Structure formats: structure tokens, C-alpha cells
């Protein structure tokens, strides 16, 4: 993993999170030694199948893990300070203002009995100095900015009166209200149909042009990552199995799981294949996690060693690494791009 010279804007370092089991059941290890980081101006993607711990990671980054979750190792740092060690009041001061989150499933993310306007006004409580009217006006302006026509009227609507796409836009608008340094979008397009998804991706791409904070996009959809992100962390069964710049990830994936994900991405398929390809097998149990490589049972390259010995982190190239026994550092790769250059250009094709 690339070692940043200065402390990153936000990072999880060796973070392990477990959910306590009910009635003496063993704890479910949702995250194991996860390290990710995001810099200002950067869009970082976190991909993985359902249940691999994406939402848990997102919740940990904003310090809102559910009550039955325990951080067993590692830290979350915002501007170098240990976020999880802060008292609750300190964390609350950061939330919304410095780190904001657009939640998965905008259907239930807003209170059903308060209007969008009321909620977006409340969410700006950090600006207590301004009156409600001023904050409401800001909310209206932000709704207009995320592409909601008729924003003034939408303020008076209840969440269920909006379409899925509008709600998702409203959720993003809410997260942007305080121009936070870190914006976390958990599955921003999952609940939407293809047209809506394209619109939201378009919106996020526009946002990254004039927004200078870090954006962390959580998704199980590799296509979204390709459209939006500079850098990607692939999560599998609670572990980061591969980290790469988005170009490298698509063209030179180092982990068999990443390759399988790319092979299953409907957008990358040519011609009509039915049924859609899937990765055979299922995500492993995490209470407790299997010894050896968690992906081994589904992996076509797995050897006997993969089932017993946990794979090491292998740096395969600049800014790219994979947790795999079979991964090898790339030699002098003629097609390799300079990661710094790609970073600066935004690395979007």
C-alpha cells in the first residue's frame, strides 16, 4: 500500500471491527485489519459484494458503529487525530460539518414524518448563529445545485413524496450542506434504475470538479467505481484484498477476486450472455473467519497453501497491492502509468 508522506485527510489504519454474537455465539468479524486512506481532492472507491463489510467501514469512518459493534484493533484518524478515541461530543462536532455521509437506501434515510426542508435545516445546526430561514434558504440552494428542479417546493415535501432519484439527490445535498472535507457516499446508486444511476454518477462527477474535499464512494458495482474513482480498495469478507488506481484495477487486476468481479461486471460484457456470469460459491462465514485466504474456496488458482496460510500483502506495482499468495510484483511494466500523474489528472477515461 502506498505510504503517504503526510498524514492523510482521513484514514482507517489496521481497523478491525467485530459484531458481538447473540447468546454466546462467536463474534462476527466484519472488518479485519482494514487500512484505507483518502486525500483532499481524491475520489476513493470501496467495492465488494454484499455483506463484505462496506457499510461497517463507512459507519466506522464517521464514528457511528451500531451498539453491538466493537473496534478490536486499529484506529480511524481524521487530520491525524484519533476519531474513535474522541469523546462523543467531539465526534458529534465533526459529524456533518467535517465528515458527512449520504446513506445507503435513501428510502429510509430521512425521517418519514418531517419535511425535507425541516430535516435539511436541522442538519445545519452547526450554523446555530444563522436563523432557520437562512438555513432553509441554503438547503433550497443546495437542492437546486444537485439538480432538483423546483427546489423551493421540494423543501415542503415529505420523503415519500419524492422519487428514488430525487431522494438520493436530496441525501447527497444533505451531506454537502456544510461543505465537509470528507463526503462518504454509501451505495449512492444501488436503489436506482439504470437511468437514475447514470444521472447520479453524472452529478457526482460534476461535484468532484468543484468540490475539493475527499469523496469516498462505497458500492458493489464496479462500473460506478470506473466512472468516478481515482483509487479503489476491493473488500472481500472484511479484508482489503486489493488496492489499486482505477486504471490498474481494470487493466492489470492482481487479485483473483478482482478479476472475477471484472468478469462479472455487466457493463464490461460484450454480446448477450444469459444468464449473467456470477462468481461461483458464496461469501464465507465471518464468525469466525476461515483460516488461510477467505477467497480460496471460490478461487480457481487456489493451492493447498491458500486454504491454511493467510496470504501476505504483496506490493505488485506503484500504488497497487494485493493480499494473495499468487500475486507477484510486476517487473518493468511497459504499459504502467505513473500513479502520481494519474492522480493529478483525475484518472478518468
Amino acid at each position: 500500500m502506498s505510504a503517504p508522506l503526510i498524514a492523510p485527510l482521513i484514514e482507517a489504519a489496521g481497523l478491525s471491527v467485530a459484531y458481538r454474537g447473540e447468546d454466546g455465539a462467536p463474534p462476527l468479524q466484519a472488518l479485519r485489519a482494514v487500512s484505507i486512506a483518502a486525500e483532499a481532492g481524491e475520489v476513493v472507491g470501496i467495492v465488494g459484494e454484499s455483506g463484505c463489510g462496506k457499510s461497517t467501514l463507512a459507519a466506522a469512518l464517521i464514528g457511528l458503529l451500531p451498539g453491538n459493534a466493537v473496534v478490536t484493533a486499529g484506529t480511524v484518524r481524521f487530520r491525524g487525530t484519533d476519531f474513535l478515541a474522541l469523546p462523543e461530543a467531539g465526534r458529534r462536532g465533526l459529524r456533518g460539518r467535517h465528515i458527512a455521509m449520504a446513506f445507503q437506501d435513501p428510502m429510509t434515510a430521512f425521517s418519514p414524518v418531517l419535511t425535507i426542508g425541516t430535516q435539511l435545516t436541522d442538519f445545519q445546526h452547526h450554523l446555530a448563529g444563522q436563523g432557520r430561514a437562512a438555513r432553509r434558504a441554503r438547503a433550497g440552494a443546495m437542492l437546486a445545485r444537485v439538480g432538483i428542479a423546483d427546489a423551493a417546493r421540494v423543501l415542503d415535501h415529505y420523503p415519500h413524496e419524492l422519487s428514488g432519484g430525487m431522494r438520493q439527490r436530496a441525501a447527497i445535498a444533505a451531506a454537502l450542506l456544510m461543505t465537509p472535507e470528507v463526503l462518504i457516499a454509501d451505495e449512492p446508486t444501488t436503489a436506482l434504475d439504470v437511468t437514475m444511476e447514470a444521472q447520479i454518477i453524472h452529478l457526482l462527477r460534476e461535484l468532484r470538479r468543484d468540490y475539493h474535499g475527499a469523496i469516498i464512494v462505497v458500492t458493489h458495482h464496479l462500473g460506478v467505481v470506473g466512472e468516478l474513482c481515482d483509487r479503489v480498495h476491493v473488500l472481500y469478507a472484511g479484508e482489503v484484498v486489493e488496492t489499486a488506481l482505477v486504471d490498474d484495477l481494470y487493466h492489470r487486476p492482481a487479485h483473483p477476486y478482482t478479476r472475477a468481479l471484472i468478469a462479472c461486471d455487466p457493463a464490461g460484457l460484450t454480446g448477450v450472455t444469459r444468464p449473467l456470469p456470477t462468481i461461483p460459491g458464496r461469501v464465507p462465514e465471518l464468525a469466525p473467519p476461515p483460516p488461510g485466504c477467505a477467497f480460496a474456496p471460490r478461487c480457481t488458482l487456489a493451492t493447498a497453501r491458500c486454504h491454511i496460510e493467510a496470504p501476505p500483502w504483496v506490493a505488485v506495482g506503484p500504488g497497487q497491492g494485493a493480499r494473495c499468495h499468487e500475486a507477484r510484483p510486476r517487473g518493468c511494466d511497459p504499459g504502467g502509468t505513473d500513479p502520481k500523474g494519474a492522480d493529478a489528472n483525475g484518472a478518468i477515461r
Partner: protein
Amino acid sequence: MLSYAIRRVLLAFLILFVVMLAMYGMVFLVPGDPASVALGPRATPELKALLTARMGLDQPVAVQIWNFFRNAAAGDLGFDVWSRRPVLEVILEVFPRTLVLGLVALGWAVGLGVALGCLAVVWRGRPVDRLLGVLSVGMIAVPSFVVALYSLVIFSVWLGWLPAIGAGERGDFWGQARAVVLPAFAVGIGWVGYTARLVRAAMLEVMGASHIRTARAFGLPERIVVTKYALRVAIIPAIAIIAVGLGGILSSAVFVETVFSRPGIGTLITGAVQKRNYPVVMGTVLFMTAFYLLVVTLADLLIARLDPRVRDVLRG
């Protein structure tokens, strides 16, 4: 919303109609004919015939039922057999006392219950929460007339702080206020525990909802998360149950009014039953049924106002 309101009111009238039919049927099930029951064992046949004619009991059943409904619709619930005053007048004379008792009891009980329920949620799992849990079960389990008897003995007889009987003189506000304290305490105490448990359960469910996590993710203070975002959702099922429970409040008022010899619907109906004063019994039951339906209907309309989702389902 308007069409929902109209439908709701029509439904209330339908229920009232069925209740009235059932009540009328009851009159025929009572052993002996109403006239002899009203007049008692010493009635002469002439007197009985006279009363039967005056009560319209010599008419065909259909006509009797029609008259009953027509009179009830016009607010004529018949005459008190003993005092010969219109039943409605007798009821309206004491009803405000019961209404005040019920409202004061409901008010303090629900207010305190909601507050305790919220506290239990904020401190969930801590000793305070467990203590509140035990206390509220205790409060629900003790019958209101037992509370009434004990509070009467302690606060009126031993300590002499509050009046033991009556409802205070008309026009004497403080006298009336002092007289309502103990009865309202006795009637309401079960409801404190009940409301607290109800609100706690509803709140705990709501606190796990994702919109609460959203509110927290924006750093909203816990106080606002609980009182605005969670309570606003959790109170909706509580309102429905409290409205239905008003029936329970009114029936415990019957006992408590008797204990405190407090004029009201409770003392009226117990007295009327003892004296076989059927027009008063029937009129009171009918009146209270109508009142109860009114409250439940209003609660439904309030819920529709508070929950925009219900409002829209109704509109659509």
C-alpha cells in the same frame, strides 16, 4: 383527508347505531317488563298500564325502536324515573366532573409516562432503565381503587392535606382543583407505567431506524434526536392506544368516584343501577359510548395529521 374524516365519522355513527340496537335488545332481555321493574313490587295494575302507555311499551316493537332512535337523535334520552328530570340533563350536570377527572388523570399520566419512556431510552440498559421498568409494571398491576383507598387514607385522613370526599364547590376553583388531585392520581397512575412502557418500546424500535442514524450522522444533539426525530414517530402508535385506553380511564373513574364520593358519571351510573333506574343507566351508557367514539375518531384524525404517509394513503 376530508373524505377520510367523513368516512371515519360515518363509521362512528354506524357503531353507535349498532350499540343502540344492542342496548334496546337488552331491555327485552331483562326479566319482567320495564314498567314493573321501574315501579317495583308494590305497583298496582292501573299504575303499570299507565306507565306502560307513557313509556310507549304498548306500541309495536318497530315503532318503539323508531321512537327510541328518533328521540335519541333529538337528544331526548328519556326521563329519570326518580327525579323525573330529562336523563340528558342529569348526565350533563355531572359529566364535566368526570371529564375534568379523566383529562387531569390522562394529562399527568401521559406527560409523565412519555417523559419516563424517553428517559428509559436515553439510559437504556442502565440501572435507571431497569428501575423504571420494575416501577411501571408495579404501577400497571395495582388496581386504581386500591390506590384510591390508600391515597385517601394517607393524604386525607392521616395527613389532612387534601379533601377526602366531594368535588369542591361550584365556582371555587382551588377547592375543585384540590378535590381532583387524589382521584386523578389514582386514575392516572396505572397509565404512567403503561405509557412509559409503550413509549419506551416504540422509541427503541424507532431508535434503530436508519433515519435516526442519519440525524446522528449530521451531529444533531441526542436531545433533539430523541425528542424530535424519534418521539415524533414513536408517539403515533401511542396516541392510538391511549385513545382506546380512554375507555379504561373512564371505567376506573367509576371506581374512584365511588371511593371519593365524587359526583360524576361513575357515581351516577352506580347509583342508577342500584335503584334500577333504567332510563338513566341506558342514557349514560349511550352517552359514554358516543363520547368514547368521538375520542377514538378524533385520535384517528390526529394520527392522520401527524403521519404524512397515512395522510397520503388516505388521499390517494
